């Protein structure tokens, strides 16, 4: 499993082609503005960092997306074979 981290808005689409089945996507920082775009990326586990959502006053709408604490982020990174930061 590869963990794909995004921290910028507007770049999810550019890098979706590198996603594989069973990979995980995590949106942090300003990438959380794109949380609605995760809906269609069913190939991967999809996460959004809770604290960064809260800092921006956002709430998740989709049931398919999970909120992640920083503690859970660390666990996800430890479980991943590789952690990639896209921007």
């Amino acid at each position, binding site marked *: 499993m590869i963990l794909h981290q995004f*921290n910028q*808005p507007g770049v999810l689409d550019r890098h979706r082609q590198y996603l594989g089945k069973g990979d995980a996507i995590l949106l942090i*920082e*300003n990438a959380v*503005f794109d949380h*609605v775009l995760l809906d269609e990326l069913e190939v991967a586990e999809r996460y959004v960092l809770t*604290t*960064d959502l*809260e*800092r*921006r*006053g*956002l709430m998740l709408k989709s049931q398919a997306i999970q909120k992640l604490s920083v503690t859970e982020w660390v666990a996800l990174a430890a479980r991943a074979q590789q952690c990639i930061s896209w921007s």
Partner: protein
Amino acid sequence: MKRLVFLIQTPMGASVEPQESLDAVLAGSAFANCALIFLGLGVTQLRRSERSDFRKDFNRGFRALSDFEIDDIFYCEAAARDHGLLDHELIVEARSLSPNAIRQQIIDAHAVMSF
């Protein structure tokens, strides 16, 4: 008094730019008739948030606007729609403007600053 328009395009959250743009607007209010227009990703600054641990508390920052008698606070209706910004989420009283009306605000200003 001359009219200054501040176009705010930076998203809320990652950088200190939202705060530094607000500082510029407050400074402007002493010398000019100032308007703030939030557009593009900048409309995200208008959404109230309960967590302000890293950056300065924005609720307080925006309250300063009325203390400085800056009432012309606008946002782009199209950008608000794009970002799902709802009326009841607004951190400050702001009026929506059409892209055309924003263009007119720009034309009528003495100068325009972008942030």
